């Protein structure tokens, strides 16, 4: 049990170091904040991470509001992203 945990801790530390490295590399070049994006752009980027991006004609504006809440629990997007995406899908 102990040996397994020690091994696992090393595993996790190496994983975290890898993540820090990747953050540093990706962080250098970015110059546009996510919050400045439009609803359509956020829809194109976030709503096709798991499945195809949904067609805005699929549901009514009230239904999109429900789906927005539902998908927030899966995609773990921020409230700002959710509200912009829902507003875009409702138009």
């Amino acid at each position, binding site marked *: 049990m102990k040996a397994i945990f020690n091994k696992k801790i090393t595993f996790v530390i*190496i994983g975290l170091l*890898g993540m820090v490295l990747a*953050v540093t590399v990706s962080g250098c070049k970015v110059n546009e904040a996510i919050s400045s994006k439009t609803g359509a*752009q956020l829809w*194109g980027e976030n709503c096709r991470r798991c499945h195809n*991006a949904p067609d805005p004609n699929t549901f009514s504006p009230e239904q999109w509001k*429900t*789906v927005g809440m539902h998908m*927030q629990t899966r995609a773990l997007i*921020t409230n700002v992203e959710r509200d912009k995406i829902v507003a875009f899908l409702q138009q």
Partner: protein
Amino acid sequence: MKQYITIITIALLTSTFAKAQTKDTIEVQKIGDKYYVIVDHPKVDTTKQFAPAPAPPPTISKTFDSHFMVVGLATIGFLNTWSVNKVNTPTGVVSTKLPTTNSFGDVAHYEFSPMFLWRHSDNILVEFEPSFSNGSLGVNWADITYFAYPGVILRAGYIVLPFGTYNKRLAAGWICKLPTDPVSITSSPVGSDWGIELEGGQQTGKMKVNYDVALTNGFTLSATDGSIANPDVNAVDNNLGKTVTGRFGWLPALNSGVEIGASGLWGKAGDANTAYKNVSTAMGALDFQWVYAKKPVAINIKAEADMQYVTNASYSNPNPPTVSDTTYTYKNLSYGYYGMFSIRPIVADKFFRNVEFAVRYSSYQSPKGSAFENRQDQISAGVCYWINWRTVFKIGYENLITTNPDNNELAITNLKNTQNILYVQFSVQF
């Protein structure tokens, strides 16, 4: 050593992907004076996206229809299986060809699951998904979700454990690009359980992070062979110890195209007041995804590695080699992984635009020395034809090899089964 190399390779790949992702890779096209998102919906007018501010969401109306939705999924299919058994004997390999079978209904993969969504208020959502599959009616999830603050969502009920990404995000037939699920997922005991959950997402500077933590009843341990199982939806918890499961997700790229996640799970598994009361389980998973779409192709890479560990215990041997040696023990560690790659052309042609090719490899190793030891190797390849964003017709081919080695202590003889399976499947989200 092998796992360090894997981790470092993943980290390097990630940084490369992340760097490539700092530009917008969701291409928007201008035709005349209108803009179109070219992937998935070439005809969707996105001129609206250039409007300065989004319209405020309409206030909730009080009618039943506006609060209540029935959605869901349905998957049906056909399969044809060719199967061979091989046994290693002292005189050589004995090979037995099993009868070829085929079946409409595809028993293991059909599913009819309506989902009821009730938006109780701006902050509360109720979701319930009963499911008809594998010959029985069951429940995939049933929970109440409370949107407490921005970035803090609370949930209680029968929930999908936040472990890895496959179960909660990718398992639906209209989402998964291949007709089957990976063996590393189907062989893992992780599923849905009763409990409470806390989850949310945050933007931190130029990237996003998310978390998902649950406290649930936990697994049950079989006193017969040490295997662990998800309790039945009706079961009363078998001990006082609760199980903690958590996943941390990180989206390093500005366009959310890359996500890396690490999950862990700890909890008691043995029945209270038995010799197994202290037996507990620890699990871990790493997941990765990269979603890309820019002319001429859309690419999707998804991968997840899982391991399950159960602390040591002795179990009684059904076929003891001697009268005095009636118990056995083994290192109760299982592990598996899968990697999926898919590619879809972004072209003007109406037919080819809807075609997606996918390949996947998955393997799973159950504990060595256990009564249920085996290794599964699964290679899958398939073509999807997307009738629309949520309706898909799939043709797939799979090679599945299951190997059980000899175990003299438990009097188990080796067996290697090879299956080649052709699938035709149709899946919709409704």
